[in-house]
């Protein structure tokens, strides 16, 4: 998961690495994803989310395409 200056820079990077385009998020979307994913990580009772729980988290952030499916 990398930061780029623009769509054009993403395209150039994908071409250099011979990779197709993946998913592109705004910095705001990525912050909300990071906050949702990691805010409870220091809790002693933290556990990995189940696949269904992770899908629900992605869905709550509007990340509903096949790209975000874990299975």
């Amino acid at each position: 998961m990398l930061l780029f200056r623009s769509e054009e820079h993403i395209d150039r990077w994908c071409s250099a690495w011979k990779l197709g385009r993946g998913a592109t998020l705004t910095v705001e979307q990525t912050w909300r994803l990071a906050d949702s994913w990691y805010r409870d990580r220091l809790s002693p009772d933290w556990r990995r989310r189940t696949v269904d729980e992770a899908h629900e988290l992605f869905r709550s952030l509007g990340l509903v395409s096949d790209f975000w499916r874990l299975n």
Partner: protein
Amino acid sequence: MFSDDFKKRLRVKIYELFLADGRCPKLEKLAAALDCDLSDVTTATKQLADAHVLVLQPQSGEILMANPLSAVPTAFVVETFGKAGPRSWYGNCIWDALGVIAMLRSDGRVLTSCACCGEGMTVSVKGDAVVSEPAGLVHFAIPARRWWDDIVFN
């Protein structure tokens, strides 16, 4: 297979020492802190890695990632501005770098660069507001179902 209680105490101790020392604890230090054998820590960390809770270094078996924190320097420097004063960390990627700020519930910023051209970029978080200077976009190259195929590349 170690008990869930031991692995829970180990996981908590990893983060506790990481945050206290500002660097990832070695396995020997964890064994001393938990008053157990090094072999217990070595085996339990492998089990946590198998469960995708940690990522280990391939040769030494030491911790590489206690997500969102990286044990080794990366291109994602995170500065946090909590009550204890400014601290500096490394994130594994831009998602994790922002995750460090979220996890520590402080204001902070990520110092990084455009992965294409190398232009310096700073993403700042203050309260719930996030700003990238210059403006940026985040690209996820690998679909979610393949993230753990090669988590270091990802």
